[in-house]
């Protein structure tokens, strides 16, 4: 008789109220006289640090809707409004939400409805991020600012792109934020966010150490649901508190030898590439957990500033500091998201987290993470003998997720790992 594996989830319930509060405050912001900015890509911080302005982070909203099971209805509204299915589901989610507001279409969960924004900020990290801002701008006439944020293909491209992005932020974005919000951009606010955020990231990294342990004490899924405090709720006291609690739980597990997988820990340690499937986290982990398989690391969740030492809240030019983090800091997001930097990053994660196999989640409507995935799998398999498979799906659109296809590929990966162990 085989071992009956059971997941022992960490208590991440603290994140729900924190996330709900964030979106509730955004819904209430207008009533309090604040202006609202919708931001795609990592430039939301400039609105976030501005007094009299509340900031909506578009990917965070998609994760929120997906995680709360509200995405399908909004995506249907988008389709009714004319959107075509092969566009980015985050794009459709936002245009669907705007259509619901403008048309007054009924919605079963009012939490998906946010106030009409005063400013759209497209950080054109992915080219499609600007497309949805453009669409909203054309349809609803909301002021929009788009900033080019190219993902760098080569190391040597980073400094010149950084310079360009900094110039755009200073010349175009900040003046627009100041004009719309009616308040001066506050550098001290930004420094304070960075200070608190850095402290939180240091604690978060201590938590990551427990994923390196064999057996692991928690899973990447537990971390996935814990990203919001690091990213779009950065610098808030409750974010810090959340990670303090998480670390305490992990230390307790370590003291009592309680692994993430009962009875004796995981059989397969997996790497997960690409977005997290926000609306299907439960569905996916249920395909892995009973086999004793858990994801322990991945490029996307580890892109949120894995090295707090890189963050300098006292930098002379704090506006530039954020761009430096994105482009020329040693672990810059805008390099590791590209295929070249990505491959180096994956290799490092595989070694640091002692991975047995790789799952590359390929979104049918978002190609940002798909770039080079098949190449990376082939190359890593050749170099290290670690097998990998691609699974196709979407982060929030259930019409694009085929459970059988995914289950078959996960099982095939686990069988390959077994075969190589023999």
């Amino acid at each position: 008789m085989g071992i009956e594996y059971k997941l022992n989830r960490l208590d991440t319930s603290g994140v729900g109220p924190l996330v709900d509060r964030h979106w509730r405050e955004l819904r209430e912001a207008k009533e309090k006289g604040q202006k609202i900015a919708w931001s795609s890509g990592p430039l939301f911080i400039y609105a976030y640090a501005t007094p009299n302005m509340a900031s909506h982070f578009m990917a965070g909203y998609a994760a929120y809707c997906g995680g709360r099971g509200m995405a399908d209805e909004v995506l249907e509204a988008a389709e009714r409004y004319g959107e075509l299915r092969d566009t980015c589901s985050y794009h459709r989610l936002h245009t669907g939400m705007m259509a619901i507001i403008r048309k007054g279409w009924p919605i079963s969960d009012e939490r998906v409805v946010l106030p009409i924004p005063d400013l759209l900020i497209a950080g054109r990290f992915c080219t499609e991020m600007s497309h949805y801002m453009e669409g909203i701008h054309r349809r609803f006439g909301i002021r929009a600012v788009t900033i080019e944020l190219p993902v760098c293909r080569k190391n040597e491209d980073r400094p010149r792109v950084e310079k360009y992005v900094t110039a755009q932020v200073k010349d175009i974005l900040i003046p627009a934020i100041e004009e719309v919000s009616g308040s001066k951009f506050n550098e001290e606010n930004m420094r304070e966010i960075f200070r608190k955020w850095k402290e939180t990231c240091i604690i978060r990294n201590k938590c990551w150490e427990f994923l390196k342990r064999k057996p692991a004490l928690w899973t990447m899924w537990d971390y996935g649901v814990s990203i919001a405090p690091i990213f779009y709720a950065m610098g808030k006291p409750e974010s810090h508190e959340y990670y303090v609690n998480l670390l305490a739980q992990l230390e307790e597990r370590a003291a009592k030898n309680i692994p993430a997988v009962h009875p004796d820990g995981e059989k397969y340690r997996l790497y997960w590439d690409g977005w997290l499937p926000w609306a299907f986290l439960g569905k996916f982990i249920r395909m892995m957990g009973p086999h004793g398989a858990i994801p322990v690391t991945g490029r996307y969740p580890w892109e949120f500033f894995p090295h707090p030492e890189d963050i300098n809240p006292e930098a002379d030019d704090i506006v530039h500091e954020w761009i430096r983090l994105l482009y020329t800091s040693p672990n810059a997001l805008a390099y590791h998201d590209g295929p070249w930097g990505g491959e180096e990053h994956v290799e490092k994660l595989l070694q640091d987290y002692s991975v047995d196999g790789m799952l590359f989640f390929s979104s049918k409507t978002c190609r940002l993470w798909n770039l080079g995935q098949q190449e990376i799998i082939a190359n890593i398999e050749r170099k290290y003998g670690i097998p990998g498979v691609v699974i196709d799906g979407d982060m929030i659109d259930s019409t694009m997720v085929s459970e059988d296809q995914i289950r078959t590929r996960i099982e095939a990966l686990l069988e390959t790992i077994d075969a190589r162990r023999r």
Partner: protein
Amino acid sequence: MERVLSKIAEVTSDPYAYVAGLKERKNKKIIGCFPMHVPEEVVHAADLIPVVIWRGNEPVTWGHAHVPPYDCGITRSFVDDAVRGKLGFMDGFVFHIRQCLQAGEFPFIMERHFKPAYQKVLYLPAIYPGDPTRDFALKELESFKTSLEDFTGKMISDDSLKKSIEIYNKNRGLMERVYEIRRAKPEILKAKEVMQIVWSGMLMPKEDHNELLTELIKRMEEKSVKAQRERIKVILVGCLCQTLQFDILDLIEDLGMIVPDDDLYIGSRYFANPVNLNGNPLKALVDRYLTKSPLCPTKGVWDIHWGDEAIKKMRDNDAKGIISVRVKYCPPHTCYYPDFRSKMVEEGVPEVMIEMEHEIISLEGVKTRLQSFAETIGGV
């Protein structure tokens, strides 16, 4: 006229053989430029032959191991050609990776599997206001020029760049004249032939293409055309980056419609906007790139509407409707399309969208849509 058209058809019927032969005949290196915005003039001025990369003529096979099935046709087809060794005659490539996400696939894959002697990645920015964007675009082109100089070991002077721009501008002018005649005498060329004319210009050295066009124009001007029957004029819009299947173009005409003008990439978009030759030639190329019209959905232009441009073209040509050709999995077009469609509805303009894939499974679905569209606008 038939002689010129047959020469053009020869080029486009087997672009692989043509370009490989061209390399031998001219004894020059071939640089593949990914559509749609690489300024070919810079490559030309480096005494290399720029050719615009095309969607292949075979179903994707080995390429499936490198790119997902939900990438667009030209992405999958080009990668397939590259990994199957069909592009061995190319010496280098230029990829502008900011026009869409999928373009970002190529440099990585090519470096691994093709190892071109020359490869350049351009980050041309979308058209957003402000000096930083213009400055950055200029720096990109300067770096492009330097990379070509390093590759060839020869400097590109301003004069040689201006000379190349002149040749390209002449080509644009000649193509514009072909279109003018076509607008006046739409029956003079089949839509397929027009696409072949534009496409051949992307493959041939522009000097050679200019010669062909000069002769073609002369013949077109001389030729009088009598319409066989009343046909319904329609404007084709879209089909970014790649050729439209000729079968679909034939189908449109078989159904009683005729195309007096278009807004296709392998069409009027390719030769729109001559480069202004006064002053710094690289700055002039930047100016052309940053020109907002014809609106390209990859460039983030917000203050004019693609729908307005298409409607104007339709009305200028006394056409009855618009056929949008959307390449499946083309995000820039797909994201824009709902607004384009809304504009058509708002203005009461008949419009139909057909979706194009690299491998046509069946033309029947397309035929049904087009047939019903033709009946709606013209009562055929």
